[in-house]
């Protein structure tokens, strides 16, 4: 017996329970390839390599005590496929584990390292850690309370529709974030108002120590999108081609029909939650080793070699080039000075109210006093 409820038919349920893929973990073609030229195929690979090398460098700088904390990206680099179809005027609300997103939007390695070190050039001026964003790229800095950005994205999409813009909004968040009220309110509003927003849930199967099956009893995140009246699909999130193809369709649909869309990116967090975490307390190394073979770069590299877009030595050379490139940038940013001492008084409001003016004056006096007492002003 098949029933259709408000556009929810068996086919749309199937899409939320299957795993859409184009290449398998060896790089074999198992689905419909998108029609992409060699340079686009190569670009996707290049962004993933850049994200991986940058991730390695951030970890290295953290170990050296230069970066306070970092959330490893290893295994989730195929997120670049989701953002590549967007235009510069589209808006993005990234999560905190999204180096590939920041790079695709146009942020470069130097800006990312300036941010991680919160030095004098930090675009976010030392506000908070492990978050990235820049108005220049229509990318709003991530709120640290997970999921807060989800309803923001829906509001932006509504405003785009209201102002008759040709733009769409994309928002990233983790599987853990789908338990928060922000997720449910955001999806509900999007379903009710029919706005051009694309939800991308990076389901890496862990929220710190809580595995996905303890986060929800829903069979998938995509399934939950569907019940809010949003077209939803679960995608092999380690297959960058599948991510790219589905995101292109979602973006196009959002742009033309002003309809929301949810993509569940099924992936796996191969690293620790952050550099402050110790995963050996809650998950086995055996599981991680088993999941390693599904990681996104190797399979795509095989695919590109098969397609004649890339050779093995070119791939190695690309990695080496970015590794050296970031090494140079790291040297440069480590030599930059810090932010001004009074930086946190600014950007609370457009103009300082009298209380903050008074407090700023007192603050400056206290710096002088520290010096006279022989105390270190950091």
């Amino acid at each position, binding site marked *: 017996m098949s029933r259709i409820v408000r556009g929810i038919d068996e086919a749309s349920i199937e899409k939320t329970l299957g795993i859409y893929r184009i290449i398998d973990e060896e790089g074999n073609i198992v689905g419909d390839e998108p029609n992409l030229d060699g340079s686009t195929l190569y670009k996707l690979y290049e962004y993933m390599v850049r994200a991986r090398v940058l991730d390695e460098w951030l970890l290295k700088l953290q170990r050296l005590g230069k970066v306070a904390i970092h959330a490893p990206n290893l295994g989730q680099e195929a997120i670049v496929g989701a953002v590549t179809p967007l235009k510069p005027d589209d808006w993005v609300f990234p999560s905190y584990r999204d180096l590939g997103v920041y790079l695709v939007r146009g942020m470069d390695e130097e800006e990312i390292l300036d941010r991680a070190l919160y030095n004098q050039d930090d675009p976010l001026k030392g*506000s*908070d*850690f492990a978050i990235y964003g820049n108005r220049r790229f229509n990318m709003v800095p991530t709120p640290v309370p997970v999921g807060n950005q989800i309803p923001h994205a829906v509001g932006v999409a509504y405003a785009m529709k209201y102002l008759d813009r040709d733009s769409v909004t994309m928002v990233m968040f983790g599987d*853990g974030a789908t338990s928060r009220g922000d997720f449910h309110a955001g999806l509900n509003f999007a379903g009710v108002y029919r706005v051009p927003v694309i939800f991308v849930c990076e389901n890496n199967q862990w929220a710190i120590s809580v595995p996905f099956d303890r986060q929800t009893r829903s069979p998938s995140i995509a399934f939950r999108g569907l019940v809010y009246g949003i077209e939803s699909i679960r995608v092999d999130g380690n297959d960058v081609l599948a991510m790219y193809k589905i995101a292109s369709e979602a973006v196009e649909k959002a742009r033309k029909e002003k309809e929301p869309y949810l993509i569940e990116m099924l992936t796996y967090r191969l690293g620790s939650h952050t550099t402050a975490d110790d995963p050996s*307390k809650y998950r086995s190394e055996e599981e991680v080793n088993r999941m390693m073979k599904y990681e996104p770069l190797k399979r795509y590299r095989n695919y590109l070699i098969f397609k004649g877009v890339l050779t093995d030595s070119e791939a190695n050379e690309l990695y080496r080039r970015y590794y050296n490139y970031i090494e140079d940038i790291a040297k440069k940013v480590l030599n930059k000075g810090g932010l001004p001492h009074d930086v*946190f008084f600014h950007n609370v409001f457009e103009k300082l109210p009298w209380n903050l003016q008074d407090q700023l004056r007192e603050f400056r006096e206290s710096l002088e006093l520290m010096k006279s007492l022989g105390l270190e002003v950091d």
Partner: protein
Amino acid sequence: MPQINMVEALNMALREEMERDDRVVVLGEDIGRRGGVFLVTDGLIDLFGEERVIDTPLTELGIIGFSIGLALYGLRPVAEIQFIDFVYEAFDQIYSNMARIRFRSGGMYNVPLVLRSPCCGGIKGGMHHSQSPESLFIHTTGLYVMMPSGPYDAKGLLKTAIRLNDPVIFLEPKSIYRVIKEEVPEDDYTIELGKGKIVREGGDITLVTWGAMVHISKQAADIVKEKLGVEVEIIDLRTLYPYDKDLIIDSLEKTGRMLIVHEAPKTLGLGSELSAYIVEEHVDLLYGPILRVTGYDTPFPLAHEKLYMPNIARIYNAISKLMEY
């Protein structure tokens, strides 16, 4: 007696209370296998099992709303909010229910729920891992609020909190989780609600503070003694609501000068209330103004957190000003 840190003392308090009363359950994000991100609940899941040491989905609203239900039915939940900065999704539940159910029901129902959470700055945690929102809870009305400054008090206060029949917000200054070690007895002891403690005696100035600021204040007091010859008496409030007015008044009778030190922003920090109360009821005890050294009225920054937080220089400065009276 072994010297242990605050994390270990809190863990001991939870274990002892769970052994004493099987209605005590703990819940929160990552508190089971992971033992909490700061390991306060480490090992409890092995001792008491998954039904009493409950790893929850990632929703603070869920954790607190659900805990209220547990408490209504007679359990004694101790809910962990991973960082107090993430509590705001639950604020509706806290403000409108946790703090109001006794009143709403004319005293028929009560909510013996302890919300414990790491708070405050000093670990380079940035805006959302560093804030000191104690005033929000005090101003809620209907909540007891506590903040220990060391392992011994942490254990005794948490036990008191768990045994109270009303809701408690129990804030743990994470910067001193591991740096201070004290002798903590393995026996059952509690610390009375609403009782502060004099942690340094002196006859010139009454310095009222709590949490990690107790330790900064002690350092400042030593320098002030050396450089200015001034003797500072330091009161660690321990319970922030209801605070220990008698201890403050007794001290002021001796000193006549009052300084308040807290990390929370200045405007409507607990310092505002302490100052207003003393001026209203005991202005005759004062030689001059009451001064405050506090966080500034800005979000807690990642950059230069040491300059944002009350530091020795600012406390020193305030003390020299007070000594002009």
